[in-house]
C-alpha cells in the first residue's frame, strides 16, 4: 500500500516509542502516507491501522481531528493562509483575498486545472511573519506581499 521508503520513515517514528505503544506513531504515519498519496483514502487509513495494530475507526478519529490531514483529494498544491487576528492585523486577510482573486476560488475549493486548493488556516505560530501561508503543509512562506504571492503561484507548477 505504501512504498518501502514510506514504511522506512514510519518505522523510524515507531522506534521512538516503547514497543507496546506503536499507536503513538499514527500521526507521523498518516503524515507520511499523505505525503505519498496526496490525501488519505479509506484504504490508506486501513493500511496504517493494520500496520500499527489499531482499530481503523481510531485512525479515522485522528485523521479527522487534526486539520492538516486531507480526507478528500486536494489540488497538486495546498495553500493554507492564516487569517487569524494577529495575521489579519498585518495583512493576512488581504493575502487570502488576493489568492482568491488570482485563483478564482474560495476557501476549501480547488482550481479547475487541479493545481491549487486554498484553505483558511488557524494559527501557525508565525504571526510575526504575517502574512504567512503554508504550501503543502510543509513549507512556510513568510511576509507574503501580493508580489511574492504572484511569484509563488507562478513557481508552483
Amino acid at each position, binding site marked *: 500500500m505504501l512504498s518501502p521508503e514510506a514504511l522506512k520513515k514510519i518505522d523510524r517514528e515507531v522506534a521512538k516509542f516503547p514497543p507496546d*505503544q506503536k499507536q503513538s506513531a499514527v500521526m507521523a504515519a498518516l503524515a507520511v502516507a499523505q505525503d505519498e498519496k496526496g490525501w488519505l483514502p479509506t484504504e490508506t487509513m486501513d493500511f496504517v491501522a493494520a500496520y500499527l495494530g489499531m482499530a481503523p475507526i481510531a485512525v479515522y478519529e485522528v485523521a479527522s*481531528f487534526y486539520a492538516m490531514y486531507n480526507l478528500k483529494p486536494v489540488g497538486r498544491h495546498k495553500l493554507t493562509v492564516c487569517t487569524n*487576528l*494577529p495575521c489579519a*492585523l498585518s495583512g493576512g486577510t*488581504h493575502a487570502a483575498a488576493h489568492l482568491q482573486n488570482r485563483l478564482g476560488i474560495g476557501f476549501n475549493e480547488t482550481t479547475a486545472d487541479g493545481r491549487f486548493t486554498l484553505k483558511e488556516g488557524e494559527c501557525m505560530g*508565525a504571526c*510575526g511573519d504575517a502574512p504567512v501561508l503554508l504550501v503543502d503543509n510543509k513549507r512556510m512562506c*513568510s511576509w507574503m*506581499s501580493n508580489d511574492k504571492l504572484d511569484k509563488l503561484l507562478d513557481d508552483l507548477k
Partner: protein
Amino acid sequence: MSAATFTPMTPPFAPGAYGPDAQIMKDIDGLNWRLADYLKRGGYDGLKKILAENVPPEKIIAEMKTSALRGRGGAGFPAGLKWSFMPKGYTGQKYLVCNSDEGEPGTFKDRDILRYNPHSVIEGMAIAAYAMGITVGYNYIHGEIWDTYERFEEALDEARAAGYLGDRIQGSDFSFQLHAFHGYGAYICGEETALLESMEGKKGQPRFKPPFPASFGLYGKPTTINNTETFAAVPWIINHGGEAYLRLGKPNNGGTKIFSVSGDVERPGNYEVNMGTPFAKLLEMAGGMRGGRKLKGCIPGGSSMPVVPGDIMMECDMDYDSIAKAGSMLGSGAVIIMDDTRCMVKSLLRLAYFYYEESCGQCTPCREGTGWLYRVINRIEHGEGRNEDLDLLNSLADNIQGRTICALGDAAAMPVRAFIKHYRDEFQHHIDHKRCLVPVYV
C-alpha cells in the same frame, strides 16, 4: 493595510536583534544554531558541570525554585515546584515532555528558540531529566512549523553524536533519550493533557484532572511537561545560579521573557526583555505603533487573555503580577497590538471563530457554546445584532467559563467578556446603527 512596511528579519540578524536584555537569544544571528556554535557560546557547560560534579538532583530543583522561573507556556506555574511534584523513589518509567505546540494566536517565540537555538532546549531538557531521574523525553512540535521540526531533529542528531544525549552522557551514569514529535494542526494539543493524548496516538482531547501528569502522564506514567522557553532558560540558571536569574526580573517573576509582538507595530517580532520591563519600552523596541497611530488596545498574553485598553497598557509593566493587576494575564507572552483604526467587533469575531474551530468537541459547554458565541458576534458584526445580544454573550461566557475539562472554554469566554467590557460602546454602535464605528476595517 499593506503588509510589511519594514525589512523582514531574515538571517543573519544584526547583533542584539532580540534586544539588549537577551539571555536565551543572546548573540543569536539566525545562522549560528548548530552544536559547534552553541558550544562556542558556552553551551552544554551546565550539563557537563552537573555530570562531572555529580550535583545532587535536589540541589538543581532548589536552584530552579530560587530562580522563580515560571512556566512560559501560558499558565505561569513555577517550574521548580512542578519538578518537585514528580514522585520520588518511583522505579518505573517516567517521562519528560517539552510542549512546543505553539499555536496560541500571537505567539511565535518557541519557533525562534527551536530554529535558532535548539541546543538550549536540548540541554535544558537533559538537565531537567537529570534532576527528576527521567530517562526518556519527547519534544512535541507544532505541525505547521515543519522546517523547525526537521531542524530540531538535526540538532538531536548532533547532540547524540557528541554524547550530550543517549546512553551514559559524557561518560557519566546518566542516560537520556530525547525524540521529536510533531503535531498536525490542532490548537488544543497545546493543553498539556491533550498533548499527552495526542502523543499516545489519539485525538487531542484533554483529560480530566486530577490525576495530574506528575502521577498519571504519558502512557499513564509520571510525566513532567514544560514549555520550550522554560527549558531554554534552564542552562542559564544552572550556569549563573537561580539567584542571578531571579535578579534579572522581579520577585516572583524571575528572569527574562521573550515577548512575541504582533499586529500594528512597525517591527513585529520576538523581543527578550527582563521581567518587569515597561510595556512602553517593549513597544518602542518593536518600532512603535505602525504609522505612528494611537494604541487602542492590546492583548498582552496571547489571544485567550483579556484585552487591555491602550491607556492602561501604556502604564503597565511586563510581568505576571503587573499584567494581572491591569486585568489580564501574561500568558504565553504574545502581545497583540491594535491601533485606533481597528474594529473591535471584527477583531473579536475573528478570535471567536478561532475557538469555535479549535474546540475539541468533548465538553458540552465548549462544543456548543463556542459556536453560539461566534454566531452572535457574527450577526452583530453584520448589522443583525439585537439589543439583548451583549447580555446574551456575557451570559453564555458565564455558562462556558469554569464549566469545562480544560481551559479552552475559559479561553473562548474571557476575550468575549473583556472586549465587551472595554469596548461596549462600539458593540452597541454596531447593534444600533448596523455599521462600524471606525472607518477602516481589519
